[in-house]
């Protein structure tokens, strides 16, 4: 536990989870540590439940009785923009929408997109000057992922950064207590991404037949397998969020490699270690801090009976991934953890797990391999620009020197 943090002796709910505390938002680990030890299933004053143990998250976060939205709906929340997407739909609807694009994101299919990401990264490295400096979040994280998705969709490449900022605005309204201003900004973020999705769909409709993912999904609409709204929301997510988490993971990876230079040496010299190193990067980078789910029937979790009345349960992935029962010395970068600790719940669990997981893995591996081809040392220059909430962690700037 950090020596700089003072935690009170008799904790209140606010002590366990001080949602408004900037230090909690910046680095919640000491609070998560306390939660895991003292209140692995915490009942909040409003009846919401917070679950933090790895075993409980793995078992219950995918429970079939849980919904991604409250049973009463989300009214005018900005996230109503995704009600017809894989994010917030359930059952047969969710399955149908996800299957309209899933075959393009399999481990085998993403090998092509990984090569596109590698080409994008190589081009960025070619532009590095004699000072060795590069804006790495953008050039090595965001743009390779955006270019890879452009290839898969069959659309022109674009600067990915506006989508990062837009997605970060939407994520701020997913926090525990979003402010009215955060809600307004989230609407703006969705507005921007929906406008772009409509533009791309319209352009592809005027130029059909390339057989790539967007063309195929428009065919699905034409054949009645997908609605127009489902198409628009899917493209908003696939394109709008293509590089949001991959960009953050790359930034987090470079910080880890700068702080642990021996790991980069091992990565460079021993390709057999790369998958394990990448898994540890995912464990630590944590773009999605938590998952919120809502009950439809009573659930028994860790001795606590959760009523089935739409009670909100927050599963804190960030705590589960630092659960000492599974990850000894959780704050350390250790790529030699036992394989039983390698299940990457950073991508979620169950049918709502990240549909882009294979693509994110392929992109990260492809770009890190390109960096390792040419360089042996990463140095962080200046201060990274992180944008965090109690629900998400992301980056909007990271300059590094590669040598």
């Amino acid at each position, binding site marked *: 536990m950090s020596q700089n943090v003072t935690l009170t002796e008799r904790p209140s709910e606010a002590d366990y989870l001080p949602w408004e505390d900037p230090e909690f938002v910046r680095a919640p680990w000491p609070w998560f540590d306390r939660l895991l030890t003292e209140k692995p299933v915490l009942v909040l004053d409003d009846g919401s439940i917070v679950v933090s143990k790895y075993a409980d998250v*793995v*078992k219950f976060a995918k429970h*079939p009785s849980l919904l991604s939205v409250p049973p009463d709906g989300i009214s005018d929340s900005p996230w109503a923009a995704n009600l017809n997407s894989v994010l917030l739909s359930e059952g047969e609807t969710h*399955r149908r929408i996800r*299957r309209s694009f*899933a*075959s393009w*994101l*399999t*481990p*085998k*299919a993403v090998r092509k997109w990984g090569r596109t990401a590698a080409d994008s990264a190589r081009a960025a490295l070619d532009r590095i000057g004699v000072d060795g400096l590069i804006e790495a979040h953008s050039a090595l994280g965001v743009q390779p992922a955006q270019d890879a998705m452009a290839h898969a969709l069959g659309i022109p490449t674009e600067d990915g950064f506006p989508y990062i900022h837009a997605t970060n605005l939407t994520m701020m309204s997913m926090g525990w207590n979003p402010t009215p201003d955060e809600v307004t900004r989230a609407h703006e973020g969705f507005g921007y991404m929906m406008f772009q999705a409509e533009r791309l769909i319209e352009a592809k409709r005027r130029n059909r037949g390339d057989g790539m993912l967007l063309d195929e999904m428009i065919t699905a609409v034409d054949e009645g397998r997908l609605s127009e709204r489902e198409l628009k929301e899917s493209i908003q997510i696939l394109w709008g969020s293509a590089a949001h988490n991959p960009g953050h993971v790359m930034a987090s990876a470079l910080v880890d490699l700068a702080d642990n230079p021996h790991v980069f040496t091992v990565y460079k010299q021993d390709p057999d270690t790369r*998958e394990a190193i990448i898994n540890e990067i995912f464990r630590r980078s944590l773009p999605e801090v938590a998952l919120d789910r809502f009950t439809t029937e009573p659930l028994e979790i860790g001795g606590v009976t959760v009523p089935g009345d739409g009670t909100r349960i927050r599963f804190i992935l960030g705590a589960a991934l630092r659960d000492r029962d599974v990850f000894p010395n959780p704050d350390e970068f250790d790529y030699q953890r*036992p*394989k*039983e*600790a*390698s*299940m990457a719940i950073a991508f979620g669990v*169950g*049918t709502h797990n990240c*549909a882009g*997981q*294979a693509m994110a893995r392929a992109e990260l591996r492809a770009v890190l391999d390109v960096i390792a081809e040419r360089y042996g040392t990463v140095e962080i220059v200046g201060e990274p620009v992180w944008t965090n909430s109690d629900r998400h962690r992301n980056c909007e700037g990271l300059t590094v020197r590669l040598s």
Partner: protein
Amino acid sequence: MTAIKILFGTESGNAELVADDITDTFTDAGVKAETIAMEDFDIADLPGAGTIVVITSTYGEGELPATTEPFQRAILDTRPDLSDLRFAAFGLGDSTYETYNNAIDVLTADLAGLGARQIGETGRHDAVSGESFTDGAVTWAKSIVDAL
């Protein structure tokens, strides 16, 4: 010798990787094999296929994934005589579910119910174990190749 057909059904593509690993292991052992997606396989060819391997993950609460479901439905609709068919089976699952590897068990029972004879034990990969798909597939394939 006819190549052994390694049929896979999948939701997220992991069963496809397993199928390729099994094909490669058999090939290295001198047994001709080819990976075929279930959605690309004509059920009419099943009775005369000789020896096959079926591979499937389990989706959600014990369900058959996207490309296994139509394959199984076609078998149950046509009910072919499979008394000349031999098969081995491998499943991908997650033991935190009570319905762990249910899909491969359903498929195995359906094939056996139509007269097909299973070779060896059903292989099972468990996501919780942390074992790579390749390690699980190759270990099982090596254990079964001599019985094919």
